């Protein structure tokens, strides 16, 4: 088909700017210290269709260019127009590779059809051209192009200085994907030796170990299986490629959590313990929650659905899920992170009969943004990962209309090897649907028709589940990376919720890892069987082979079951919303996962074998405490100077530039936002939403994460994460008697092998973390209702291998009876009395101060006493008393005390209120001055109370450790003393400047 080129560029002139160009200019300055005098941009559209170029040329201003602010033209290279002059020094054009999701192109195609409805097969691809003026002479054009595109998914053409002088401008052509070759299903002979079995797994990216290959081999040796297969006219003695791929997806670490389900032989050399743990998940996560479920009536659905559901009031229930998207985000930070957030939104939509996502949380772990050391091949600089991941989550969340209400960004060198991208979503649903069914229970029966709804299936997204179960290497496949399409998903979401309320849905789940193979396969467990016809599945591009259709993880798809009599109504609703919905399967009760391609049977697997056939892993775990040089602070120090340094640490510094770019208050429900205080820049401890309009009944959303404590003990790391999540929520007034948690483990590979010689130690870390999780959650009466693990967070092999620190993100959601009775972290009124709730011990091991002083050469190591939680029952009692005081209106100021201890917490409270405070830390615990000022002991919250409420507050806190610290002052300085010793005196604006400057990353260019 003929292709018409349309180019559009911003008008120049008074009040007009080329903002896209300016953004590139700022980034070059911030990330690379390169100054460009001017950068301009051109948006390009390649229109492949039957409409004549002349007809398109007449409508440029109706669609492609906004005549008020832009100039556009068809079949004219903008660079040849006078406005670009003759001075460009470098020109770079970036477009998508064939087959990669092009969202602007999709939208343009939709708009094109509004104008030219007859040209039904038209397709539009987009590109962006950057035009540079006044670049430093040593700035290489190809290097510059490398900073502006990701070769995995994008292509770039470059005109360097010479080409620019020649006026030889780059022109991208329409990206036509290569023909896909349809391959008939093959059978794969497994009657071979072990080495060959392993090779089949490795070369096929199946990520199945030898035991698992043996289990599959054994299945096809079973005579009754062979007979059954012969009857169905499918290869009797060997799996088809469809079956092998399907088993690999379903049995992947990603889907089956084999390490958490494994049988572990655990040896502790510290205590002499030698024992066996049969499934960490069942022992330490599921059992405690099920025990707690007996005591409360609000735990509606735990573990088995796409998210955990709790009753919130008589009319509504709420649910939450968090996921990670680490490997895709390492390869393509933007696309990987975006599919992470829109993917977890679908988990909520796929909960029960469909919940509405109402809040997002985002927690990222990155390498230091100012990293100047070596970078392994194939890895991006941490600042680029930060920008890309942030942009992906921003676009995914904002365009979906879901507020991001809580999150964190954590930095450590080791996350250079694998960034962690945690995305969480909270959902809400009516307890009962209009037809009387409880909305948290799926109700499919055999005979129901299964639809694939939303996007189409493409080559993108093949092997995501198995790929994330392998370590990152230079050969990681590009098909594992995708770009999300939030608008297609939003249309689907609107449609699905209408279908739910109309009573049309009997079962629903997300198409995530493993694609249709997992989604239909898992739902088929309800009725014990299904029959799928892959030939009916709508494709982005013809030619996909059956196994590819079955396992492709192409985004924006839900799998929904509908009663036969409701099909017409369901399809009409899909038409109205312009959402594609195709019947692709039927539920049966045959006990078989039966897949056809038109008339031919291409897979025929027993449901039981598919879901229960994977052999349990047998693993070895061995604990020896790591030996680290202890952190020993110098005898004297300038604490004011230390505080200035600490406020600039990326782990402590304000993340405002980044977080402010998330919409955190769409839906008009966010009562405590990420930013608080007089300048709206103080840190919010937890998000509070009141989701029912007009009703102040609230929900608290918080998180805790403390990965560096794993350097000393991953058990302490887990306890600290949970305690931090609870403390954050208590600070805003959580009802501690109705809270639920999510455990998201990200670990380096803990299976001992030649690649992982220290696997036993890493597994022992996992055992200890799980034991602490159980101990603390039981004490806090805090059930884990959903969770996820990602167990292969390593880069490379051998001596250059980078393994992340074992990391648990603990997310919490809980009840807030009345959001009008909340507290925030900013100091509010002169004369308010400041108290420390909790005690400061001598716990500086793995503290932020220890890391800073060690990196600066002021100390020799970060080891020592890591913060512990010896008596969690007492902490809970204290938290209950404090949160009740907040909800009684006695306390309006509360702030969690964590990284950087009392000193940093006080500084942040002063910044929030733009006020001074005068504080004495004498008598606040057993630690020395370092421990009391900088230590990170758990269980501590700083509060401020107005004098009129002081007596009532103290009597409410009777029996709980509560020590007066000082007073909110009229001065503009924070002063901290230890008895007569002056420790800190810093001006609040100085502190605010340091705290806000570090992670600004805008380059200071206007």
């Amino acid at each position, binding site marked *: 088909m003929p292709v018409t080129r349309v180019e559009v560029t*911003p008008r120049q002139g008074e*009040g007009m*700017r080329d*903002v*896209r160009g*300016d953004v590139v200019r*700022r980034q070059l300055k911030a990330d690379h210290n390169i100054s460009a005098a001017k950068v301009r941009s051109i948006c390009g559209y390649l229109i492949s269709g039957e409409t004549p170029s002349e007809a398109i040329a007449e409508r440029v201003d*109706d*669609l492609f260019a*906004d*005549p*008020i*602010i*832009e100039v556009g033209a068809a079949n004219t290279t903008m660079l040849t127009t006078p406005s670009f002059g003759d001075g460009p020094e470098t020109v770079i054009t970036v477009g998508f590779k064939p087959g990669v999701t092009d*969202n*602007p192109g*999709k*939208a343009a195609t*939709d*708009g094109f059809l*509004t*104008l030219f409805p007859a040209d039904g097969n038209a397709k539009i691809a987009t590109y962006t051209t950057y035009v540079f003026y006044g670049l430093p002479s040593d700035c290489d054009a190809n290097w510059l192009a490398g900073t502006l595109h990701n070769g995995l998914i994008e292509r770039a053409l470059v005109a360097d200085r010479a080409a620019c002088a020649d006026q030889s401008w780059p022109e991208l052509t329409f990206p036509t994907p290569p023909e896909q070759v349809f391959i008939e299903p093959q059978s794969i002979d497994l009657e071979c030796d072990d080495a060959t079995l392993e090779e089949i797994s490795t070369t096929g990216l199946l990520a199945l170990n030898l035991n698992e290959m043996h289990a599959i081999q054994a299945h096809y040796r079973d005579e009754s299986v062979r007979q059954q297969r012969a009857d169905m006219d499918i290869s009797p003695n060997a799996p088809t490629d469809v079956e092998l791929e399907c088993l690999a997806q379903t049995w992947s670490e990603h889907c089956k959590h084999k390490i958490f389900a494994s049988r572990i032989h655990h040896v502790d050399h510290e205590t002499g313990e030698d024992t066996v743990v049969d499934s960490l998940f069942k022992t330490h996560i599921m059992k405690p929650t099920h025990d707690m479920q007996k005591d409360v009536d609000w735990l509606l659905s735990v573990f088995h659905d796409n998210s955990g559901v709790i009753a919130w009031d008589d009319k509504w229930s709420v649910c939450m899920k968090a996921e990670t998207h680490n490997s895709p985000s390492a390869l393509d930070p933007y696309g990987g992170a975006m599919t992470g957030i829109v993917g977890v939104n679908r988990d909520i939509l796929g909960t029960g009969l469909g919940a509405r996502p109402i809040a997002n949380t985002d927690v990222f772990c990155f390498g230091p943004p100012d990293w100047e050391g070596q970078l392994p091949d194939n890895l991006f600089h941490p600042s680029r990962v930060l920008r890309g991941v942030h942009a992906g989550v*921003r676009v995914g969340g904002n*365009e*979906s*209309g879901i507020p991001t209400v809580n999150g964190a960004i954590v930095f450590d060198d080791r996350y250079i090897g694998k960034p962690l991208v945690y995305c969480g979503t909270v959902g809400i649903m009516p307890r009962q649907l209009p037809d009387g069914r409880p909305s948290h229970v799926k109700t499919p029966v055999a005979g129901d028709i299964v639809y694939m709804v939303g996007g189409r299936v493409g080559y993108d997204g093949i092997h995501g589940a198995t790929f994330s179960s392998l370590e990152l290497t230079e050969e990681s496949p590009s098909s594992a990376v995708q770009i999300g399409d*939030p*608008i297609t998903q*939003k*249309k689907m979401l*609107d449609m699905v919720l209408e279908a739910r309320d109309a009573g049309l849905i009997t079962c629903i789940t997300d198409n995530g890892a493993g694609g249709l193979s997992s989604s239909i396969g898992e739902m088929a467990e309800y009725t014990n069987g299904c029959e799928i016809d892959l030939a009916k599945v709508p494709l982005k591009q013809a030619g996909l082979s059956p196994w590819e259709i079955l396992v492709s993880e192409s985004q924006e798809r839900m799998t929904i079951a509908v009663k036969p009599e409701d099909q017409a109504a369901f399809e009409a609703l899909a038409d*109205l*919303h*312009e959402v594609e919905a195709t019947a692709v399967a039927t539920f049966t009760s045959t006990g078989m996962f039966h897949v056809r391609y038109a008339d031919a049977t291409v897979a025929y697997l027993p449901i039981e074998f598919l879901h229960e056939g994977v052999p349990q892993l047998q693993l070895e775990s061995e604990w020896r405490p790591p030996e680290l040089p202890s952190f020993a602070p110098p005898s004297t120090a300038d604490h004011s100077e230390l505080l200035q340094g600490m406020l600039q640490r990326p782990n402590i510094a304000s993340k405002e530039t980044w977080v*402010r*770019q998330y*919409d*955190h*208050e*769409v*839906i*008009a*429900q966010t*009562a405590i936002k990420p*930013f*608080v*205080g*007089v300048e*709206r820049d103080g840190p919010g401890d937890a998000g509070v939403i*009141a989701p029912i*309009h*007009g009703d102040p009944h609230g929900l608290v959303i918080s998180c805790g994460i403390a990965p560096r404590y794993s350097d000393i003990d991953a058990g302490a790391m887990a306890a600290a994460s949970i305690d931090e999540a609870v403390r954050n929520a208590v600070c805003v007034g959580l009802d501690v008697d109705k809270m639920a948690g999510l455990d998201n483990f990200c670990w380096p590979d803990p299976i001992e092998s030649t690649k992982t010689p220290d696997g036993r130690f890493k597994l022992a870390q996992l055992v200890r973390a799980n034991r602490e999780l159980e101990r603390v959650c039981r004490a806090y009466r805090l059930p884990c209702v959903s969770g996820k693990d990602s167990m292969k967070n390593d880069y490379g092999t051998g001596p250059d291998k980078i393994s992340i620190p074992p990391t648990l993100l603990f997310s919490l959601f809980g009840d807030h009876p009345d959001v009008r*009775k*909340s*507290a*925030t972290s*900013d100091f*509010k009124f002169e004369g308010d009395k400041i108290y420390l709730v909790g005690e400061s011990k001598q716990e500086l091991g793995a503290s932020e101060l220890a890391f800073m002083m060690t990196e600066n050469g002021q100390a020799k190591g970060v080891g020592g006493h890591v913060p512990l939680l010896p008596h969690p029952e007492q902490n809970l009692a204290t938290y209950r008393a404090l949160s009740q005081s907040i909800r009684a*209106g006695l306390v*309006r100021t509360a702030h969690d005390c964590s990284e950087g201890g009392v000193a940093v917490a006080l500084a942040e409270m002063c910044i929030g209120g733009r006020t001074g405070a005068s504080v004495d830390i004498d008598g606040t615990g057993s630690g020395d001055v370092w421990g009391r000022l900088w230590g990170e002991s758990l269980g501590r919250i700083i509060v401020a109370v107005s004098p009129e409420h002081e007596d009532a507050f103290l009597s409410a806190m009777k029996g709980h450790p509560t020590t007066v610290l000082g007073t909110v002052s009229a001065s503009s300085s924070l002063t901290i003393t230890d008895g007569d010793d002056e420790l800190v005196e810093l001006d609040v604006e100085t502190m605010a400047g340091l705290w806000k400057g570090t992670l600004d990353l805008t380059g200071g260019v206007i």
Partner: protein
Amino acid sequence: MTPRVAVLFGFGINCDHETKAVFELVGATADRLHVNRLISGDERLEDYDILAVPGGFSFGDHLGSGRLLGNRMRFAMRDALRSFVDAGKPIIGICNGFQVLVKTGLLPGPEAGHSPDFIQRGSLTLNDSGRYEDRWVTLEFDPESPCIWTKGMTRMECPVRHGEGKYVMPSADDIDRLDANHQLTVRYVDPSTPPGAGRTDEALPYPLSPNGSMRNIAGICDATGLVFGLMPHPEAIYARWLHPMHTRHGSEASSGALDGWEGEGLQLFRNAVEYVKQRS
């Protein structure tokens, strides 16, 4: 009578639930209506008294915010929209809805006395900062504006949440003409100025003006004062518990709805609902 409000949704509009809720809090009934239901004729715009185009990301803001949804409305709902305006019924566009109304040409619209001609006269473009941001701003209303939505309102705090909120017109004359008619209904102001004295033509620094809008324009109305659009979100402060400083002001009640917890933004919606009631 109870005024009926059509709240559009679909294709990425995402503030439809709260927009419906705020109209209902001030005594209207409101329906979330998918754009395609109006285009197909399943529902008729003329059956409604007020039209609201809520915020969101229709079509992902691709090809310019509000452009593609604006086109669908401009080409497929042209007659219905013209009749609605000619019948003197109020329309509001908030954030993405404002962008849609500007790009359909309903705002600022033709001179007084003319029917809508669907010619685009201004635009909303990328913030000077290059960033989408959610931040609270202080707004002030032109007391002489013909806008029926903002009667009696002086100053308000509420959030902006956009990446393309910079209002521009081709020439200073274009804006002067709107200003002379008091169609520059609402502007960003410096909160340290006395209420009522904040509006200025001098460009305010970022972030007081969050986007670099010409003359700090936050919202405009058409010549009749019935069609109104603004980038900030008045519905996001329908209750005082949504204000970032509510923990400072305690729980004492004030006047208005929601047990005395009515937020400043609700009045804007009440004005339109009362206008319709009085007219009928």
